């Protein structure tokens, strides 16, 4: 060891950036991830905008116009897609094909690999959210004012959903099962969390408020449309879920494929 450490290693940040660049390259070259992960929410908000227009404010949307409501919730679902779904599926596939084993065979530290994935997912999320916000603007949705709260919520949400994605990838046994399992968990969760329609059931909201998706929606809805800043309670729930995900990921993540 004493010998090897004399050779100059590149700095941690330089290595991280190197890793993020190649993650980006792999992501954008893959038509499936580029379309379904990245473009899908953009298409959704465009369609919603065309259907609902700027619209008038209504109590159904908590005193907001329909699109004012949907810009933050679709932004949230885009983060779910590029962090949770994408990571869980990609990692399950990479493990099954031995791509992760190949990574493990190099000196790249595990934390750099995962931090690289996280940074990559945050970048994709930021671009996605910016596009969705921009399209909302075209339909007359005013730009949000609390950018700092949005930025913090976005990074915390992306990190938490990345951790949950890695956790699910750790629990999935084979790559064929990954997409259905990921969607099976996500779909009802998104539905009861008010992403595609506001939920006015107090009991349902209490339940979904303890699960990760609704707090993320709420934490974005405030600074996006309701001129409130940080939503401490929601961010707390989100953080707790991220911690649970990280714990499962650290304890259960495997690099090597399951033998056939």
């Amino acid at each position, binding site marked *: 060891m004493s010998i090897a450490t004399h050779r100059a290693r590149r700095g941690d940040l330089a290595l991280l950036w190197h890793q993020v660049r*190649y993650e980006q390259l792999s992501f954008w070259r893959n038509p499936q991830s580029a379309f379904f992960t990245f473009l899908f929410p953009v298409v959704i908000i465009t369609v919603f905008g065309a259907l609902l227009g700027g619209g008038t404010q209504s109590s159904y949307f908590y005193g907001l116009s329909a699109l004012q409501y949907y810009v933050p919730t679709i932004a949230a679902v885009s983060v779910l897609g590029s962090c949770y779904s994408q990571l869980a599926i990609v990692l399950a596939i990479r493990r099954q094909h*031995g791509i992760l084993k190949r990574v493990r065979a190099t*000196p790249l530290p595990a934390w750099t690999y995962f931090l690289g994935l996280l940074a990559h997912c945050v970048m994709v999320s930021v671009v996605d959210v910016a596009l969705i916000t921009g399209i909302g603007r075209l339909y007359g949705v005013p730009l949000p004012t609390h950018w700092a709260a949005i930025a913090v919520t976005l990074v915390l949400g992306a990190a938490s959903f990345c951790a949950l994605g890695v956790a699910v990838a750790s629990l999935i046994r084979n790559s064929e099962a990954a997409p259905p399992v990921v969607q099976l968990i996500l779909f009802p969760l998104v539905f009861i969390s008010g992403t595609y329609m506001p939920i006015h059931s107090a009991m349902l909201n209490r339940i979904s408020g303890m699960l990760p998706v609704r707090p993320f929606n709420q934490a974005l809805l405030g600074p996006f449309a309701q001129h409130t800043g940080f939503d401490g309670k929601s961010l707390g729930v989100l953080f707790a879920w991220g911690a649970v995900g990280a714990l499962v990921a650290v304890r259960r993540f495997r690099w090597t494929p399951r033998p056939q």
Partner: protein
Amino acid sequence: MRAEVKAAAAADEAGAAAPSAVVVAGLRKSYGPAEAVRGVSFTVAPGEIFALVGPNGAGKTTTLEILEGFRARDAGRVEVLGIDPGDRAAGRALRERIGLVLQDIAVEPYLTVRETVARNAGYYPAPRDVGEVIGLAGLGGQARQKVKNLSGGQKRRLDLALGLIGNPELLFLDEPTTGFDPNARRDAWETVRGLRGAGTTILLTTHYLEEAQVLADRMAVIAGGQIVAEGTPSAIGGRDSARTRIRFALPGGCGLADLPAELADLAADAAAGGGLVTVQTGEPTRTLHQLTGWALRRGAALGRLTVDQPSLEDVYLRLTEQRAPETGRAPETGKERSPR
């Protein structure tokens, strides 16, 4: 750089012989009730090509994966370049100095060959030149192709490139030419010999005996989770001191009883296989002289006459058949949770 490292390592040993690149002593590993590796010991000297040869399920890959740090061992001592591969804290330092060419692995399908090699180059403190390594692996013409468009053999060569890019002191090759056509295999052998010539230590597993014979400085035969023989390919299993085998077809109208007495004695325990008489002798010159003298005196020809030593294959089959695993087949890749 490499020379300095080696000099430093040698200095550490205070003038003693160069330390072994790999030390394995009493290595054991079980998957549930199945013992895959049962007390394996061997050493690999710096700069040599060492081949671990054995049938499927013999414990080759398990042994190699323990050395590479992919699996935890149950018992025994293991050192790779002086580092315990089971020590996670030293994992990065070890991986900077070794190269791995593994089975059942893959790389990102949407990157090009050049991008893939350049990415991995960035993981090492002193990588080789990306273009040079791509050329060395025989992928010069495919550098700009996406990995998903490569053939199976080209993917294996990319794997070799990834094993070499870090400029390793020690290279692990796990069945490096499985699935290669004969030409590609010969090219790969040439590349491996070139690496040894440049000072790289190589530990390879193979089930092609020819590969071990052609490449290895030393080899060990593993069967049923144990090393059953170790030595140079030409001497392993007593091959060099084995009795010479003379085979021939008896001239028409002759029986074994017509042979000179001394020859008939030697041939007494010889089986007539494929119509050939086999004579085993510790004195081939004398025995052959008697045999051909006898044939000339009778004015007869000895058809299909051959004189040879036992082939590596003969030795291998004898060694591996004796030690077939008693407790059923140990899985080559186990079902246990990965240690990492």
